[in-house]
């Protein structure tokens, strides 16, 4: 019995909406804006979390980085004068901190790579093979340094993707000879591409064995950075404490002196940046929800006007047999029809703007199939929530006064 009635309501809703196309259109547009904002923000939000995820993987979680110097507090002055690490520090960590997987020295500077008539400024690294594992960076072609190459400081190098494309285009890179500043080196490996990291091109890089760097490029035993990875990929507070204590002792610091080195926990940094990304996303989400609210209030407004204008129609319907529930249903369906049409177009616009905005914000475009359900649920929720007050007003109308309204 009620089915016959329900089948009839949408038709009446469409009739009513068609009767005032401009007003319907404007309301739909306000919903389009709100839904589009929500869809775009959630889609971009997915992109941001995806980006943070890859970023964290790049950093390599379970990695501790030791750097010489301490950033001065309150921003006054530069770093405190501090003595560099040396290879003895690396070995001390290896032998006395428990559960470390690898400890590698890292030194770097800007250098010019030359091959034939091509040349390019790049970042030259002196390190050991374990460094790439610590950064979860695979050697895509060729191989990492052998123990022998590291021991003797062989003139071998591993290059990043940018160097490969700049110098070898499509051709073979392995076995080729590159000159790094004044040092000639043979290419033995090519790193997997990593893309941009902020402003910097992660792939514009050349790595040589630490020993080779020390003897031929730097000419001193100084080490600026030591990278430590923990067994199981998770650095424990005990390990951090042990590391800090060990370095303080080796550097003969008094108990009250501040450390003249920095211990960076990559996981902490990654989590901080993930938290920032999450905060950004939820901020944008809040704005989107506000826009949705405005769209919804647009529906309330239009429906209230519509109820006021159609008092006569409502009264007639009531007098010829409509129950308050029928009137309520009719106006709710009109509101839901408006919000549904709005949300269909809003979803399209939202996905469209996410496609457009993703590259501008440097996040990947990640389309979630859930978007369809989200927008469907939003349409229903907006229509019912914001259509309810006007619909109830219509259902409570007094038929006599409605019939007198000409």
């Amino acid at each position, binding site marked *: 019995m009620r089915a016959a*009635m329900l089948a*009839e309501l949408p038709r009446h809703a469409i009739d009513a909406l068609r009767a005032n196309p401009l007003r319907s259109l404007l309301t739909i547009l306000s919903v389009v804006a709100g839904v589009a904002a929500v869809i775009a923000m959630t889609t971009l939000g997915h992109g941001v979390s995806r980006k943070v995820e890859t970023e964290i993987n790049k950093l390599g979680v379970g990695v501790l980085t030791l750097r010489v110097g301490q950033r001065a507090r309150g921003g006054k002055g530069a770093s405190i004068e501090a003595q560099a690490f040396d290879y003895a520090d690396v070995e001390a960590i290896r032998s006395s901190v428990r559960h470390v997987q690898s400890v590698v020295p890292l030194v770097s500077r800007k250098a010019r790579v030359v091959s034939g008539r091509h040349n390019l400024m790049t970042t030259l690294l002196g390190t050991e093979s374990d460094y790439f594992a610590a950064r979860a960076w695979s050697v895509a072609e060729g191989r990492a340094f052998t123990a022998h190459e590291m021991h003797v400081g062989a003139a071998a190098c591993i290059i990043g993707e940018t160097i490969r494309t700049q110098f070898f285009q499509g051709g073979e890179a392995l076995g080729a000879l590159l000159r790094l500043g004044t040092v000639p080196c043979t290419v033995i490996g090519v790193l997997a591409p990593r893309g941009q990291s902020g402003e910097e091109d992660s792939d514009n890089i050349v790595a040589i064995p630490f020993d080779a760097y020390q003897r031929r490029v730097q000419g001193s035993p100084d080490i600026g950075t030591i990278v430590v990875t923990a067994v199981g990929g998770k650095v424990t507070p005990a390990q951090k404490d042990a590391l800090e204590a060990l370095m303080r002792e080796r550097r003969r610091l008094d108990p009250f002196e501040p450390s003249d080195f920095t211990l960076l926990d990559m996981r902490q940094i990654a989590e901080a940046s993930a938290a920032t990304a999450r905060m950004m996303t939820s901020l944008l989400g809040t704005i989107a929800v506000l826009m949705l609210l405005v769209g919804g209030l647009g529906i309330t407004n239009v429906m209230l006007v519509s109820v006021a204008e159609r008092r006569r129609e409502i009264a007639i*319907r*009531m007098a*010829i047999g409509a129950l308050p529930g029928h009137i309520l249903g009719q106006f709710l369906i009109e509101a839901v029809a408006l919000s549904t049409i709005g949300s269909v177009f809003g979803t399209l616009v939202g996905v469209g703007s996410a496609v457009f905005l993703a590259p501008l914000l440097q996040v990947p475009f990640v389309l979630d199939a859930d978007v369809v359900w989200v927008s469907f649920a939003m349409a229903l929720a907006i229509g019912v929530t914001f259509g309810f007050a006007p619909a109830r007003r219509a259902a409570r109308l007094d038929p006599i006064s409605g019939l007198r309204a000409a």
Partner: protein
Amino acid sequence: MTTASPIVALRMASKTYGRGNARVEALKSATVSIQPGEFAAIVGASGSGKSTMLNLLGCLDVPCSGSCLLAGVETASLAVDQRSRLRRDTIGFVFQGYQLLERMDAWRNVELPLIYRGVPPPERGRRVERALDAVGLIDRARHRPGAMSGGQQQRIAIARAIVSEPPLLIADEPTGAVDAATGDDIIDVFHTLNRTQNTTVVLVTHDERIAHRCGRMIRLVDGRIVSDTPTDARRDAG
């Protein structure tokens, strides 16, 4: 007059509108009782309270004091929803001034009461057709109200009122906007329903001639019932 329980009855029913200086006593202590199968006319000058009384009888409104019993139920004691149900199940309305929905054609206007009563489509179609046929406008089914003459609109409004086959038909000046011949046709439709289906009819008219075709005439002056008498039509029939 039979002594069966009335289909609708007012007892000392009053209705006032407005407050203070604007206060109007539209109906004053009206007592009237309509038996099933009766055909009654309410007459009176403009502003005498005819529509007001009809709205009470039709359960569109409730009295300020006194009582209105529709199908044995005190209307003022009902919740809005129950009152709507009672109205839906007992009454067919013809309003002063047609009150058709402009956006729908004649067919859909007439169909509407059946939709609210949950009548399934095939049955709906048959009944709409019968109602339009009864008022002689089956060939105008797909016209919108705006494309019809006043008399035609009035007849569509009547078709809409009778389509649900209500036990009580209430009509506010159903012949007000039509010529004498059309008016007679409309009263014929009511008479037929009254005779064949025992539909109770209460109508308002300004036209004494039409009032005399009804079995009973209730006269209002200034909100008060001043006479309530059987007519020749009734004496003839009786």
